């Protein structure tokens, strides 16, 4: 790929956002990472509204579930109901391992569900696995 890989990180915890960004940026591929701190901002970014009129289309959305204002599952539903956005893969990345959340996410079209539980090593390994799978294994639209 000539241009950097674009990831929209929907994450209200700056600690997790930094750790995810750090891990992705320390890999071999070039990333352009945008962070939306709540569900509403994520939707504005994707629809290029408000202060995000010039936002590029992300190659992947990493979506936390427990978000202020608009819950992650609702963000997911909005993306998957939109003809233009539907093709963007959305990977849920959350500390919730509740069956209900997993089921709801897949029912609304999540392309993957990854839990954040574990220590630093496990967290980094999961982000690296997401990177490897989505940006070297699969073919994206």
């Amino acid at each position, binding site marked *: 790929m000539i241009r950097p890989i674009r990831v929209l990180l929907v994450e209200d*915890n700056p*600690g*997790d956002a930094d*750790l995810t960004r750090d891990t992705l940026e320390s890999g071999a591929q070039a990333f352009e990472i945008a962070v939306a701190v709540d569900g509403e901002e994520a939707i504005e970014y994707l629809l290029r509204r408000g202060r995000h009129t010039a936002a590029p289309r992300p190659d992947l959305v990493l979506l936390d579930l427990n978000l202020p204002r608009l819950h992650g599952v609702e963000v997911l539903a909005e993306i998957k109901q939109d003809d233009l956005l539907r093709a963007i893969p959305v990977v849920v990345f959350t*500390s919730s391992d509740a069956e209900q959340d997993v089921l709801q996410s897949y029912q609304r079209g999540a392309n993957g569900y990854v839990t*954040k*539980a*574990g*220590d*630093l*090593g496990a*967290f980094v390994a999961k982000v690296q696995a997401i990177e490897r799978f989505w940006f070297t294994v699969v073919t994206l639209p």
Partner: protein
Amino acid sequence: MSAVAENQTQEMFRLIVEAAPNAIVVTNRQRMITLINRRTEELFGYSRAELVGQPTEILVPMQFRKAHPAHVDGFFTAPEPRAIAAGRELVGRRKDGTEVAIEIGLTPLPTSDGLFTLASILDITERKRNEDELRRSNAELEQFAYIASHDLQEPLRMVASYTELLGQRYRGKLDEKADKYIFYAVDGAKRMQALVADLLAFSRVGSQGRPLVPVESEAVVNSVVDMLRGPIRKANATIEISALPAVLADEGQLRQLFQNLIGNALKFRADADPIIGVRAARHGERWLFCVEDNGIGIDMQYGERIFQMFQRLHERGKYEGSGIGLAIVKRIVERHGGTIWLESKLGLGTSFFFSLPSIGAKNPS
């Protein structure tokens, strides 16, 4: 005995019955009330004249009246003293139609006039209210532990991750003391993460449990053994599973129970190759299970303590784990209405015994 003395004795018995703290109702073979005491009047709101000569059904709520004569006949054909409400709550019906929680003890009274029944009735409204209150507050506590441990995980993960990152990025760049401080912080955070995760697992037993349904325990044990085949091969262990029954259980919890017990048997093994047995025997409405091993054994003076949360008998580092496994096992067994205990000899092995309700059990938990 003179007529006067006999009259005195009768008067004495009448007064005793009258003053008894329980409501007393005597009925004849035709289920007619022949005698009551003052407490019966108070409890049911009828006067003596309104009750004596009436069938006992007058004190039984409408929905149970049809079945009542059959119950009474059953008692007369096998008239052993018994508490008909043993382990079961009954309700009585007052004159005003309201219901009252009661416990009844029945005693046969064979007299020269035929067989009578003495019913001693206890108002258990207060006790039931206390029990309900206790149940409610326990459930609340469990919910609290669940929410607290669940919500603690996220901020704790931040502390653990970032102290660890600090350690990775700045090791040797500050000074020796700093490295040591960071190590303690990382170690403490990680241990707390393990404890919180265990607390969460423990509180899930009560707050996230599912209803008890028929489960083939042998299939569950087989799947646990299959899941543990890595550690089993590594320990060169033999697992001997006898024919196991179907029981009333929460399948996920049953799996966890056997996983913890068989996992422990593998973990606390002696020098000899482990031999682990699982068997069960029928005891009335329940099945008594036994999981036995030839491991290092437990000093029986700790036989109770090891079922408490976070109790470990070995120093950290020798065996992994925070000491939650058996506390979870105990909690699961108790949720299934049973008890768990162990028999052990140091150096010879340990047998864990616990009971689970059979398929037809009337009061599974």
